[in-house]
């Protein structure tokens, strides 16, 4: 866990990609879940943030 946070602080690709992946997965789940409509409303912005973040952090050093 501490490796993960160290990687985030040192702008390493692995942990940042992991974070972006989690955000995208949460966004897609929010888009398609059948429980609450507010999650559907905010799903697009969450997915967009995750996707843009993924594109940026995939250029970070390993």
């Amino acid at each position, binding site marked *: 866990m501490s490796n993960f946070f160290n990687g985030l602080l040192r702008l390493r690709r692995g942990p940042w990609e992991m974070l972006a992946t989690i955000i995208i997965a949460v966004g897609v789940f929010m888009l398609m879940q059948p429980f609450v409509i507010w999650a*559907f409303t905010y799903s697009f912005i969450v997915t967009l943030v995750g996707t843009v973040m993924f594109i940026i952090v995939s250029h970070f050093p390993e």
Partner: protein
Amino acid sequence: MSDKTADRVAAATPTHVARKIRGLSDRAIAWIFVAPTIFLLLAVNIFPLIWTVRLSFTDYKANRINREPEWIGLRNYERILTDSDIWLNMQATAHFLFWTIFFQVLIGFTLAWLINKKFKGNDLWTTIIVLPMMLSPAVVGNFWKFLYQPQIGLFNYIIAFFTGKDPSSFEMLGSVDLAPWSIVIVDTWMWTPFVMLICLAGLRSIPDYIYEAAEIDRASKLRQFFTITIPMVLPFLMLAVLFRGIENFKMFDLVVQLTGGGPGSTTELTSINLKREAFEKWRTGYASAYAIILFVTVFGLASIYVKALNKVKER
């Protein structure tokens, strides 16, 4: 012979052109060759995408080309993301996506595993199994419509044979509960062979000596399956899930032929709904915003899958 042709072409090149080309660097010549492709890519892919983004902020209607579109900011996105009908369409898509991928991976992998066993006539069986995916989705949709007919449909008779129910007592395409499953069954029937072929490629890429080494170490068949077969087929399986996931997220033709989105809107997947908004209601700006939402979702999913694929490959 070819030298002579080259000499002839060189001699035929006008002097001023030849002089210009001779003065160019290798990099510039490379750019000259690549430029038409880049131009085509920009014109066919990038420009429409940027244009769609622009339209998504307007109230443009493609059937009223003389009307000046008004800039309405994020209102289209706001309307889509607070619309409970679109939310229901997303749920229908999620149901379709989850169950088709689940069944296709399960059945596809099992079939590949069975076909991979050396037995007489397995090539013939492979050919027979892959036939459905070679058909047009429109054709498949049409003939499954006949199979699902309550009076004459073979599907209903088979179900009736096993359950003892009257074949005409249930309607797969007309029932709110059964229609979502009817499209799952057809897509699974059509695309399981694709997943099977990819899994088969994965299974055939595993060298025999790994199993031989496991046999020497007295690993059981079950242990070999979970520690050799599954991990080595996983990258291929991920690829199949990626392809099918993206394809099914934008599924259109098969479902339109089968149910047309009905009964009501129970099988109205997002792509069908998007088509209605764009080309039946002619709300082009609104449909553009809708398309951008779907595009970002597919792009995000593709990023996750590609990352997962690379990770499994590294193992």
